[in-house]
C-alpha cells in the first residue's frame, strides 16, 4: 500500500538523478532563519538559507541512492512479506530516501547537517525495527549515540568554518556572512593555507572528519555499525552499506571541494582511512555471522574511500563509493536471501547452499570478486585507482606511507574473509546444520535486484570508459579525475594487488573450501588473537564501561547531592527556625508574674538601648 506511493516518488527522484547531466546546476533557495541587519538589536544580521545544488558529485551519489533504494524496496516486497508493521517499514524507508536525497543535493553545511541528522534518525528507527528484541533496541540507541558524538564534532566544525568564512567572507557583509555558508564553486580552498586561520581551519577539518567518522563508522567511532546489523538485511544493504554510511565520505568530499582541508588534516584523514581499512578487515577475519562479516568489510571499504578523499583524490573516492555501493548492496541482498532461506546468520551452520540457491551463490560470488578487487569486476577499478593515486602522492607526502601500506595489506585480508564467508556458506555438499536442508531461492522480486546489481558489479567499473560518466568523474568539482593511466608503476601496483587478492582467495579455499572447517590452530597465540578479534579489541566493552560505570555513577552521585545535600540544607533552615520557635515558646509560661518580669526586663532593655547602645552606635555611625 505504501509501496505504490514510494515507488512513484522513487521514479521521480531516479529521473532527476539520471537526467542531471554533468555541469548542470539548479539552485533554489529560501530563507530558513534570518537576522536582518537592522539599526536595532541585531546590528549585523545574517541569513541561513535552504537550497539545492546538483553538480557532478551530487548527481553521482544521487544515482546510487535512488537506484539502490529502488532495488532494495523491490527486494523488500519479498524479503519482508512475513513481517508485521510493513507500513512503518516503508514509511521510514521512504523518509530515509527523501532525507538522503536532500542531504546529497543540499547546498550548504547547515542544510547538510539537517538532513544528516534526519538520515541518522531513520537509521535509528530502522535498526530498531524489531524493537521487541532488546538487542535491536540497544543497537539502535548505540548507533544514534555514537553518531551523535560525531555530529557534535561536525556541528563545531560547522561553527569553525562558519567563523572562518564569516571573517573572510565576501566583502560588504560585516560580521557573519550575509548568506550563511553556502557552497560556492571554485572557492576551495577557502582560506589559502598558511594564513592566520590555518590552525582554526585545521581544527575545523578535524571536526568535520569526526562527523564523517561517526557516520561512516571510521575508527574510533566504528563500533556501532556491526551492531546495526540487528536491523532487517534490506536496511543493512541500503543504509548501512550503500548510502548512509557513505554520507561521511560524501561530507569529506564536499568539504574538500568547497572548503578545503589543510595538509595536516589530510594526513590525519589519510591515516584514519588507511588504519580503518586494515583494522576493520582484521575483525572480519574470524566472525561467524555472515552479515557482520560484510559489515566489517563495509567499514574497511569506507576506510579506502576516506583514504582517497583525504589524499586529495575526491573523485576517486567517490568512484569507489559508487562501485562499492552496488557490490556491497549485492552482497547484503545475497546474504539476505540466504538468511531468508535458512533463517540463521551463523556461517558455521550453513554450507553447500550452492546447489540449493544457484543464483544467490553466483551473486554472492560476483560481489565477493568485486570486493576482492579482481579484474574486471567493478571493485578492481575503483580500488586500484585509489591505491595507484595514493601511491603517486607518496614521494611528495611520505607521511602517507603507513596508511598506504595498511590499505595495501588490507587487500589480502579482504579477499580472504569474503571468500571464507562464501566457502563456508555455499561450498561443500550439504549444510552442517540439518535443519537447513529445505533452503530454496526467494521469489522473483528478490531475484531481480540480485541480477541487476550483479550486472553493475561486473560492469560498473568499466563505466569509466563511458564518455559521459568519465566526464562526470573528470571535471567534477574541479579536482583531477582519473584517466585510467597505464604507467608501468601503475601496472605493477595493479598486478601486485591482484596477486594479493588471489592469494587471499586461495588461502580461504585452502582453509574453508569444499565445506572444510579449518581446525583452530593449537598455538595459544592464534587463539588469543582470535579472542581479541572477536572481542573487537575490547573497544565496545570499554565504551560500555564508560557509559554505565563512569557517567551513570556520576549521575547517581549528583542525584544524591540534590536529594540530600541541597534539600538537606533547606530543611536544615526549617529545622533551625523550628527549634528556635520551640525554645522561644517556652517563655510563654502562662504565669502572669513571669510576664510582669518580662515587662521589667523590657524596661531595663529599653534603658540599656537608650542610654548605652544607641549612643554608642550613633557615635560610630554619626561620626562617619
Amino acid at each position: 500500500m505504501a509501496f505504490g506511493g514510494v515507488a512513484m516518488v522513487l521514479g521521480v527522484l531516479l529521473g532527476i538523478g539520471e537526467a542531471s547531466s554533468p555541469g548542470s546546476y539548479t539552485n533554489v533557495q529560501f530563507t530558513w532563519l534570518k537576522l536582518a541587519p537592522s539599526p536595532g538589536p541585531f546590528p549585523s544580521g545574517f541569513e541561513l538559507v535552504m537550497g539545492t545544488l546538483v553538480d557532478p558529485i551530487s548527481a553521482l551519489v544521487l544515482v546510487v541512492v535512488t537506484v539502490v533504494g529502488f532495488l532494495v524496496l523491490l527486494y523488500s516486497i519479498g524479503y519482508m512479506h512475513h513481517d508485521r508493521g510493513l507500513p512503518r517499514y516503508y514509511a521510514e524507508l521512504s523518509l530515509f530516501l527523501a532525507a538522503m536525497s536532500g542531504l546529497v543535493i543540499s547546498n550548504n553545511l547547515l542544510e547538510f547537517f539537517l538532513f544528516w541528522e534526519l538520515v541518522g534518525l531513520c537509521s535509528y528507527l530502522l535498526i530498531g525495527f524489531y524493537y521487541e528484541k532488546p538487542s535491536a533496541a540497544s543497537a539502535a540507541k548505540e548507533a544514534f549515540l555514537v553518531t551523535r558524538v560525531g555530529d557534535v564534532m561536525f556541528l563545531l566544525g560547522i561553527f569553525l568554518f562558519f567563523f572562518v568564512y564569516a571573517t573572510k567572507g565576501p566583502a560588504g557583509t560585516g560580521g557573519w556572512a550575509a548568506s550563511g555558508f553556502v557552497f560556492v564553486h571554485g572557492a576551495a580552498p577557502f582560506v589559502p593555507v598558511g594564513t592566520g586561520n590555518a590552525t582554526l581551519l585545521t581544527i575545523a577539518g578535524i571536526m568535520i572528519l569526526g562527523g564523517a567518522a561517526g557516520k561512516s563508522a571510521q575508527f574510533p567511532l566504528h563500533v556501532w555499525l556491526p551492531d546495526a546489523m540487528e536491523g532487517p538485511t534490506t536496511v543493512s544493504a541500503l543504509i548501512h552499506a550503500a548510502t548512509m554510511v557513505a554520507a561521511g565520505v560524501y561530507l569529506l568530499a564536499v568539504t574538500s571541494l568547497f572548503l578545503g582541508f589543510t595538509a595536516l588534516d589530510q594526513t590525519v584523514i589519510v591515516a584514519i582511512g588507511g588504519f580503518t581499512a586494515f583494522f576493520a578487515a582484521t575483525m572480519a577475519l574470524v566472525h561467524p555471522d555472515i552479515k557482520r562479516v560484510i559489515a566489517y568489510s563495509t567499514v574497511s571499504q569506507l576506510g579506502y574511500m576516506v583514504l582517497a578523499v583525504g589524499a586529495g583524490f575526491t573523485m576517486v573516492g567517490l568512484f569507489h563509493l559508487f562501485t562499492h555501493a552496488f557490490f556491497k548492496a549485492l552482497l547484503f541482498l545475497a546474504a539476505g536471501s540466504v538468511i531468508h532461506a535458512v533463517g540463521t546468520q551463523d556461517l558455521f551452520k550453513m554450507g553447500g547452499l550452492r546447489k540449493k540457491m544457484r543464483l544467490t551463490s553466483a551473486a554472492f560470488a560476483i560481489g565477493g570478486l568485486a570486493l576482492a578487487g579482481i579484474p574486471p569486476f567493478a571493485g578492481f577499478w575503483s580500488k586500484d585507482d585509489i591505491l595507484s593515486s595514493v601511491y603517486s602522492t607518496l614521494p611528495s607526502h611520505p607521511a602517507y606511507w603507513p596508511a598506504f601500506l595498511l590499505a595495501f595489506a588490507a587487500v589480502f585480508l579482504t579477499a580472504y574473509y569474503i571468500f571464507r564467508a562464501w566457502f563456508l556458506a555455499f561450498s561443500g555438499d550439504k549444510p552442517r546444520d540439518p535443519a537447513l536442508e529445505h533452503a530454496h531461492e526467494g521469489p522473483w522480486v528478490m531475484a531481480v535486484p540480485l541480477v541487476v546489481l550483479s550486472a553493475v558489479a561486473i560492469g560498473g567499473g568499466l563505466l569509466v570508459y563511458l564518455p559521459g560518466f568519465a566526464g562526470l568523474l573528470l571535471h567534477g568539482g574541479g579536482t583531477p579525475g582519473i584517466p585510467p593511466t597505464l604507467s608501468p608503476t601503475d601496472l605493477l601496483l595493479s598486478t601486485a594487488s591482484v596477486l594479493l587478492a588471489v592469494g587471499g582467495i586461495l588461502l580461504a579455499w585452502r582453509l574453508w573450501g569444499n565445506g572444510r572447517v579449518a581446525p583452530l590452530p593449537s598455538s595459544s597465540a592464534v587463539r588469543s588473537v582470535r579472542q581479541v578479534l572477536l572481542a573487537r579489541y575490547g573497544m565496545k566493552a570499554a565504551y560500555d564501561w564508560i557509559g554505565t560505570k563512569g557517567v551513570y555513577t556520576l549521575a547517581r552521585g549528583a542525584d544524591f547531592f540534590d536529594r540530600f545535600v541541597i534539600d538537606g540544607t533547606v530543611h536544615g533552615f526549617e529545622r533551625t527556625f523550628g527549634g528556635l520557635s520551640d525554645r522561644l515558646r517556652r517563655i510563654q509560661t502562662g504565669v502572669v508574674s513571669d510576664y510582669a518580669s518580662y515587662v521589667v526586663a523590657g524596661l531595663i532593655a529599653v534603658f540599656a538601648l537608650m542610654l548605652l547602645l544607641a549612643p554608642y552606635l550613633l557615635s560610630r555611625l554619626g561620626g562617619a
Partner: protein
Amino acid sequence: MSGLPFAGFLVLSGALLAVGLFGVLTRRNFILLLIAIEIAMNAAILNFVYFAAFARAPSPGLPGQAIAVVLIGFAATEVAVGLAIVLALNRVKGSINVAEASELKL
C-alpha cells in the same frame, strides 16, 4: 534652687516604684499584687506633686497638683476593676493565687 532635694525626691519616688515592681514580681496573691501596683502608681503621683512644686514658673498645661488628684481618682477606679476580677476569680477557681491560673500558655 539646688538640685539636691530634687535628686533626693527622685530617689524616693524611684524607690517607691522599685518596691512596687518588686512586689509585682514576687507576690502571687492577687490582693498583694494590687497593693504593689498601687505603690508603683503612687510613685508617679508623688512625682507630679513634687515637680509641680518645683516647676519652672508658670508651666503651660495642667498643673501637677491637678494631675495628681486626677491620678488618685484613676487609681481608685483601676483597683475597683481589679477587685472585681479578684472576686470572679475567687468564685470560679476558689483561689486568688495568680500563679495557679496558668491554663493559657505556650
